[in-house]
């Protein structure tokens, strides 16, 4: 009976997609009241393993046991019956259903009871989404919330959270942590997948590191240090880039403002005024729904402004079309890579040059293939994008490399200002380092950069100046030395007082 000490056992799991062998004999165990953090680079196979546990993918091979009972031919139905539930990495919302239906679909039982239960969880996670809203009106963050509620409602014995915090902000992450701890007390086993190492130490009982389809390291959290994890995750040749601040400071001090916002208002933000200087990295922090993405979208001509001005290099570009704005010298890396960023079944080179199609560089009428390849290869080299050739399908790249492709696309137009929205969401540590390096190098060349991020560490690491949004307004402007976790957090909730820090 020693076996049944495990809530879940998955042994020797193999899985390949065509010729791509993703899982090469994974063994994973989970006890009740245990939080196992599963970490690993993009494409390590974490989500694949979880989808196999959920019965969505069929494994090529593998033994699965729950409480010592072996399970065969898993299907989502069977897995759920066995007490497994996964909150997926990519939210799967039914766009034409209300939030209520979205959460309750697939449940049996009286609707009234279910609603009561739902109310309980709503209060617990402090969720404010209107239950009557349609799925299609939800932002990604809200979608993730709904997914989480679905998971909680299941009251399963084994809960899988696949990067649950990638779109959540600080306070919501804290709420989530409380919930996880609460569940743990109830004896529920949790598999927690994340790219944020801080979360691992805060939450996990034990850690599994996955690389190249295998578990390379496993042990109790107390036995690991942050450095050990980083070491285990990074590719052997990786050298982290260092910040050269003093050099930058001089540059910025004499710089001209590239972008000026004057009382700029739109749907989701109001009265925004700030400048971005040549070569400066401005971080925009804030909680979910603070209106940062809306601001970026409105500057980029995707939504109509409601007042104020956007001035780029002395020229008023308020309300111009996207194509115009790109021509004037702004480019934007959208936050939702899958739906707004990437041309999945198109080659990498076509992705990178897609924003150049209106410029003469790629030819007059006929497409200049040689030039296209030249440009693509330059970025592939500069950004160390891992591809077999510039003709590889972009969708087949790992998340980090996809993100680099999208960034390359926005830089290919030689913009004066780049806005990066959540540039490292869902990206592993290695790729993240690369992206940071790209951003810094960019600012060295005099390009102004705005980084929108919900990851406070990222703002601290990158920004020369941080602007914190709260409910559509600027609640604080933090100069370099004031950028820290506490200030950003308090400002995000609109309770930051400059005097207090002075």
């Amino acid at each position, binding site marked *: 009976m020693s076996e049944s000490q495990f809530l879940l056992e998955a042994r020797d799991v193999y899985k390949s997609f065509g010729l791509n062998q993703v899982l090469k004999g994974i063994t994973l165990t989970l006890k009740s009241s245990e939080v196992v953090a599963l970490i690993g680079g993009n494409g390590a196979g974490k989500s694949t393993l979880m989808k196999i546990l959920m019965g969505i993918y069929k494994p090529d091979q593998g033994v699965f046991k729950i409480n010592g009972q072996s399970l065969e031919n898993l299907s*989502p*139905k069977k897995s759920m019956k066995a007490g497994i539930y996964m909150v997926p990495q990519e939210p*799967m919302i039914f*766009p034409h259903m209300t939030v209520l239906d979205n959460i309750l679909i*697939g449940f049996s039982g009286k609707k009234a009871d279910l609603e009561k239960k739902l109310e309980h969880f709503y209060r617990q996670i402090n969720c404010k989404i209107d239950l009557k*809203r349609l799925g299609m009106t939800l932002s990604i963050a809200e979608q993730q919330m709904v997914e989480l509620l679905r998971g909680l409602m299941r009251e399963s014995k084994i809960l899988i959270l696949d990067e649950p915090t990638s779109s959540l902000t600080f306070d919501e992450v804290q709420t989530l942590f409380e919930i996880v701890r609460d569940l743990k007390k109830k004896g529920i086993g949790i598999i927690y997948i994340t790219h944020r190492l801080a979360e691992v130490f805060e939450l996990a009982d034990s850690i599994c590191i996955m690389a190249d389809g295998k578990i390379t390291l496993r042990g109790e959290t107390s036995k690991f240090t942050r450095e050990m994890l980083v070491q285990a995750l990074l590719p052997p040749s990786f050298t982290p880039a260092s910040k050269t601040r003093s050099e930058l400071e001089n540059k910025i001090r004499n710089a001209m403002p590239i972008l000026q916002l004057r009382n700029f208002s739109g749907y*989701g933000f109001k009265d925004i005024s700030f400048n971005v200087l040549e070569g400066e990295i401005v971080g925009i922090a804030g909680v979910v729904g603070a*209106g940062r993405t*809306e601001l970026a979208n409105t500057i980029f001509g995707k939504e109509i402004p409601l007042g104020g001005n956007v001035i780029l290099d002395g020229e008023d570009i308020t309300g111009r079309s996207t194509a115009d704005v790109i021509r004037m010298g702004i480019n934007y890396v959208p936050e939702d890579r899958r739906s707004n960023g990437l041309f999945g079944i198109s080659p990498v080179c076509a992705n990178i040059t897609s924003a150049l199609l209106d410029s003469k560089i790629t030819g007059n009428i006929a497409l200049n293939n040689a030039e296209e390849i030249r440009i693509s290869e330059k970025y592939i080299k500069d950004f160390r994008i891992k591809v077999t050739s510039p003709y590889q399908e972009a969708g087949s790249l790992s998340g980090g490399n996809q993100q680099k492709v999208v960034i390359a696309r926005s830089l290919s137009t030689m913009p004066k200002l780049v806005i990066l929205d959540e540039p490292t969401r869902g990206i592993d540590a290695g790729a993240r380092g690369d992206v940071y390096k790209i951003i810094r190098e960019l600012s060295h060349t005099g390009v102004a950069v705005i980084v929108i991020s919900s990851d406070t560490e990222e703002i601290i690491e990158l920004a020369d100046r941080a602007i914190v949004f709260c*409910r559509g307004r600027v609640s604080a402007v933090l100069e370099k030395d004031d950028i820290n976790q506490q200030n950003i957090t308090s400002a995000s909730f609109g309770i930051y007082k400059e005097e207090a820090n002075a």
Partner: protein
Amino acid sequence: MLKQIINRYESKAFAFLILMFVLVSVVNSDFLTGESVVNCFNDSVVFTLLAVGSAFVILTGEIDVSVGSVLGISAAVAATILRDGGSLFWAITMAICVGAFFGLVNGIGVAVLKIPSLIFTLGTYGVARGMVYVYTGGAWVENLPAWFTSASHSYLCGYLTWYYALVLVFVIFVQFLLSHTKKGHNFIAVGDNYQGAELVGINPTQTKIYAYVISGVFASVAGLLFTSRIGFITPMSGNSYEMKAIAACVLGGISLSGGLGTLIGAAIGAVIMTSITRILVFLGLSSNYDNTITGIILIVIVVVNTIIQNREIVKSRREISLKRIAQKAFIDNQEVSK
């Protein structure tokens, strides 16, 4: 509750139908005799079944262009049996088997082999139509027993035929199942978000196969009613009905991208589609206008509806955004008042 009903797309479609009737009555008061109005419904019985069957498939996010041909082959099979003195039971059974068979083939092709539905059903469309010719040798199936054809005009009450009454009750019943049972929800869920449906434990493959089988069976039942109503079967029976069935679904507010719409809507759409022919007669307009008017109604209704819908989506998104900022002001005021 009342407001909800009024806001439903089906109610608007129904209102449009009534408006059509009123306009015609203004021009030609003969139309107002109950008979003509009720006959608009009676005449739609075949298309109602086709449209409702197609609706199942469309709700799951696929399409079925083989229904017209399946109607043809089922009708030919049933009619031949009846003409040769076979029993009604046998005719019905065989027709439904044929429909279910083609539905199953479609379902397997689309759901299991994952072939785009338009293409796969285009293939079965051709095969089924060709089989009508092979089966009948190109000849008409005529002289069906009178009891079978006269059943099509036996009336439940007034001018309402049994056929339409039964089909209507059936459609309402099926709609009830669709919106109030778990299995019913599956169809819409699969069309709304395939992977999401999979994740919450729905078997999308199975659901799609069901949808196609239902569509095939509905088409074959439509074929039976067609046979009974018409009394003879030509090899071209049901030709191009698939497009009209799809048009009926669209008029009834079913989204071709799946996950949105009701069977009631499809049934109303079918009545609108078939009424156009009749209405022209009453308006004294040449039948030459038939297709033109159908096309205009289809395009205008759908364009207007889409514009309104898209506006509403943008509006609600903007409202939500504005509300978020407004909350801030609210909190500020509170703090100040403290």
